[in-house]
């Protein structure tokens, strides 16, 4: 077959997604769309108290309601199931791990803690029956604030955790940092709050559990970011059954943002209910429950100190953080404010002395775990706020102080010295310059000065960030002392079937990121087959190889590379088979663009389709070669990847009302090589919106009794279309040397940068009033109060 022009590469193309036709026509298959014959419906009775002893539960009336099949309590399940495990206890967590059970036993510790489950013939009936359950509670004292929880005399949540401390964790050099701060020319201190957030995927959680008595096998459909991990934890840790007796399937997943990584009590409770009733049991979370009982994010109280020279060289950074982890430890909760936060606080700067202390704390609030960015938005906020504060103190331009302290291109791989793996590659200044140029920085500063004379409040915020993505190397993440008891590799199988069509089964799975499209783009290029000929299968533990799940912007860098490596193995086998078919020596065969040929004689090429057919029918294979083109890879990268960039935002604040308006939002991101720019830009847009929303709108609020005041979409302000600006995106491209694709990851970058960026702009707009810091969210009221206070409190508030 003649070699014609090389086909256009799919890698780098902004092709539209193959997932979309089913989703735009209402043919998606989300959890609540699953219909199994005989399905029963579950509802959970939740504690109205944030802390109480359960004296008694009377389920008689509920059980008597026609249509109710079972009413289950925690005592009953505790006879068969263990508590959920904590899979990342992190350094310093030893004997005080307290995790939730399927339903609470004896004591409830946050508002929304599950107390009983009703299983009925319809969801309406199940909810009716909840009203008929009588629970006698003895209310206990409540503590919601993480710092207050650690003080003497605070209410205690768990006997094994004195003063509610989960762990005290440190990184960096305590002594050297103290000395550097003591001897510094300039030191700035500030307390900053990173408020609690509610992840709010538009699809809430849900599970359908089924039990087959004949085989003892469970199947659970789950709205999940990590079905393989859930199978492992549910079988081996919670139910104590062999792993092969459980199958986990994630159908289309309507967003996760971290919240669907974790093991949840309702998974265990529906599995119990399915076995008890002998029928499939479906539970779909209401939004109210989602806000109460699905994990939350952030919630840090941080005291920062930054020290520098008078000419703007950063000399030391010291951080003390209280991380509120909620009433129990969620699946990887302690790992977030430690490894993914503490070890990233140096950001993009060369800081010779860094010390971080984190206290993880129990409180009578919902569990806190990874939420988009997971530790890195908090770290970025801390270091960027610190750098801005130092710039203000020195009277130095915030862009200039950043430039002066950047890690330089020749420094990579760069070790920050606080236990993070070395940053893989970076070139921070071009991204800053590009962003400054796009916004017209000097011009804006002039306008700002003019505006101030007229009493108008204009502000510009700059944030240069770096994050850790493609989180993996098992050797690092699993190091003794950090408590992650597993690896973080990914796997993929690639088969070229007899007809030349390719099936990829991936351990990585999507919940909106478009894996089916981007993974097919990689395979089409590598094997030289039409993109349409590649099918990507995922999300079912039966039929896909093990994967650790989709989070930490790791699917392309780790899962994508596993696929790439499988295609390389396929190509190698195809080359050997082609040598046999062409009666040539193996070393003379070249495989390019889907064709194998004797080097220098491309006219006699065998196509991948011809080779696949020969491999499949298998009656004429080289001696010892197995039939079929079928290769699997378990890929454990040598390092994480470290995307970076600079975001700039301009705002105007109405001095009369305190209302903040975003004028422009500019993002220059470097996520390494880009497989599909359409998808990457979409990830950045959504990420920016979530961080911007933290700065301007969102915040979960508990009152002193532990009642969640922001318990519905009426009270918790996720942004609407008219609450966000247009985003202006640009890129620099510094390929990652860690993986052969050169990709870094893009899922969280937007969120990691945007909160700090908008915060910087708002505080900049108020700086000339003497306002040095203001905590997020910058609601009109909060900003107005700050302005009014500076004006001498003219208006009585």
């Amino acid at each position: 077959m003649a070699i014609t022009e090389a086909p256009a590469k799919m890698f780098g193309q902004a092709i539209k997604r193959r997932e979309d036709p089913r989703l735009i026509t209402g043919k998606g298959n989300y959890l609540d769309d699953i219909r199994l014959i005989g399905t029963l419906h579950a509802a959970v009775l939740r504690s109205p108290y944030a802390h109480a002893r359960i004296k008694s539960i009377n389920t008689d009336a509920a059980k008597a309601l026609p249509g109710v099949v079972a009413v289950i309590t925690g005592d009953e399940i505790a006879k068969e199931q263990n508590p959920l495990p904590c899979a990342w206890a992190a350094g310093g967590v030893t004997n005080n791990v307290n995790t939730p059970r399927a339903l609470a036993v004896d004591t409830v510790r946050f508002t929304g803690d599950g107390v009983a489950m009703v299983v009925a013939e319809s969801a309406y009936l199940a909810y009716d029956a909840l009203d008929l359950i009588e629970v006698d509670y003895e209310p206990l004292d409540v503590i919601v604030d993480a710092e207050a929880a650690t003080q003497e005399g605070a209410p205690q949540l768990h006997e094994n955790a004195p003063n509610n401390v989960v762990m005290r964790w440190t990184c960096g050099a305590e002594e050297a940092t103290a000395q550097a701060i003591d001897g510094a020319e300039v030191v700035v201190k500030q307390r900053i709050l990173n408020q609690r957030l509610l992840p709010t995927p538009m699809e809430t959680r849900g599970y359908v559990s089924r039990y087959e008595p004949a085989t003892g096998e469970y199947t659970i459909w789950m709205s999940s970011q990590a079905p393989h991990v859930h199978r492992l934890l549910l079988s081996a840790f919670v139910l104590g059954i062999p792993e092969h007796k459980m199958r986990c399937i994630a159908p289309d997943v309507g967003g996760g943002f971290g919240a669907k990584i974790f093991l949840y009590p309702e998974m265990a409770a529906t599995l119990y209910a399915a076995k008890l009733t002998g029928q499939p049991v479906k539970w779909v979370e209401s939004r109210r429950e989602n806000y109460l009982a699905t994990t939350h994010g952030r919630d840090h109280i941080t005291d920062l100190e930054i020290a520098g020279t008078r000419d703007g060289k950063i000399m030391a950074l010291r951080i003390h953080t209280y991380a509120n982890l909620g009433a129990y430890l969620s699946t990887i909760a302690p790992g977030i404010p430690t490894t993914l936060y503490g070890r990233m606080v140096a950001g993009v700067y060369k800081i010779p002395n860094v010390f971080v202390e984190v206290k993880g704390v129990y409180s009578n609030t919902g569990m806190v775990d990874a939420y988009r960015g997971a530790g890195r938005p908090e770290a970025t906020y801390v270091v960027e706020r610190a750098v801005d504060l130092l710039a203000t103190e020195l009277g130095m331009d915030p862009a200039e102080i950043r430039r002066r302290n950047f890690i330089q291109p020749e420094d990579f791989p760069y070790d920050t010295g606080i236990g993070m793996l070395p940053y893989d590659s970076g070139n921070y200044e071009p991204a800053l310059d590009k962003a400054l140029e796009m916004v017209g920085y000097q011009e804006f500063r002039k306008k700002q000065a003019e505006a101030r004379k007229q009493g108008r409040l204009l502000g510009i915020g700059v944030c240069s960030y770096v994050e850790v993505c493609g989180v993996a190397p098992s050797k690092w993440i699993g190091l003794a002392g950090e408590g992650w008891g597993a690896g973080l590799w990914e796997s993929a199988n690639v088969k070229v079937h007899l007809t030349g069509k390719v099936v990829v089964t991936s351990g990585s799975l999507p919940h909106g990121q478009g894996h089916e499209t981007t993974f097919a783009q990689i395979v089409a290029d590598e094997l030289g087959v039409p993109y349409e000929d590649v099918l990507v299968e995922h999300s079912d533990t039966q039929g896909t190889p093990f994967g650790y799940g989709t989070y930490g912007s790791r699917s392309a860098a780790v899962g994508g590379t596993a696929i790439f490596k499988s295609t390389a193995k396929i190509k190698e086998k195809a080359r050997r088979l082609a040598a046999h078919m062409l009666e040539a020596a193996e070393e003379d065969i070249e495989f390019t663009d889907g064709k194998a040929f004797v080097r220098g004689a491309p006219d006699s090429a065998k196509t991948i389709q011809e080779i696949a057919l020969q491999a499949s029918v298998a009656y004429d294979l080289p001696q010892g070669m197995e039939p079929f083109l079928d290769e699997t890879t378990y890929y454990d990268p040598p390092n994480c990847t470290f995307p970076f960039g600079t975001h700039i935002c301009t705002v105007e604040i109405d001095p009369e009302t305190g209302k903040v308006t975003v004028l422009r939002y500019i993002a220059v991101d470097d996520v390494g090589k880009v497989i599909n720019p359409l998808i990457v830009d979409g990830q950045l847009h959504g990420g920016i919106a979530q961080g911007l929303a933290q700065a301007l709108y969102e915040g979960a609020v508990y009152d002193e009794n532990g009642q969640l005041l922001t318990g519905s979409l009426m009270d918790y302000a996720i942004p609407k279309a008219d609450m966000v600006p247009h985003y202006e995106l640009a890129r620099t491209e510094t390929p990652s040397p860690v993986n052969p694709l050169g990709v870094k990851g893009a899922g969280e970058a937007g969120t990691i940068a945007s909160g700090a960026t908008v915060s910087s702009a708002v505080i900049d707009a108020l700086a000339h009033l003497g306002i040095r810091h203001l905590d997020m969210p910058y609601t009109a009221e909060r900003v107005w109060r700050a302005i009014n206070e500076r004006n001498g409190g003219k208006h009585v508030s």
Partner: protein
Amino acid sequence: MEVSVTVNGKAHHHDVPPRLLLVHYLREQLNLTGTHVGCDTSQCGACVVQMNGQTVKSCTVLAVQAAGAEIMTIEGLATNGEYHAMQQGFWEMHGLQCGFCTPGMIMSAVGLLKENAHPSDTEIRHALEGNLCRCTGYENIIKAVQHAASHGTAATNGDAMRQETKPETPETAAEIEHPQRDDGAPEKPETVEEWKGENAGV
């Protein structure tokens, strides 16, 4: 109670409990699972359908209130295997990620174009304020609606379509047509009653 209703051109007759919500009737009785439920307070808009040509949140309408009505859900939007211009727009412009809000978003946007064939960026943002999306930051949803408005029902070649909208570079808050809201611009009516100007909650 007896209900006769036409959904996507097909007549249905059922005996339903008086408290059954229209969204559950569509999903559970008719197996039209493209209409989603994303909240319990009528905020998210994942359940939006067209009822007698009006945009309604089907979680806020009782099935019995829909008696005699003509309803169109996301499943009824494509005709003869050809996507509606709005569906095509969302596909072309990457107006969806997880896809959960998408059916409601598309149905609301279809309603918008019926009233305003060529809405501005601002008008689109306001018209869609009853529909929440957590994935896209709305950027590409706005582009998707604009794409539908400018392409009508004609199918397009998607691979060549990607064009950046001209960046807005406002200098002041007053220049921004869609200031970020933190207070009460009037909400869209949520129920049929409000549309009809009758008392809500009958």
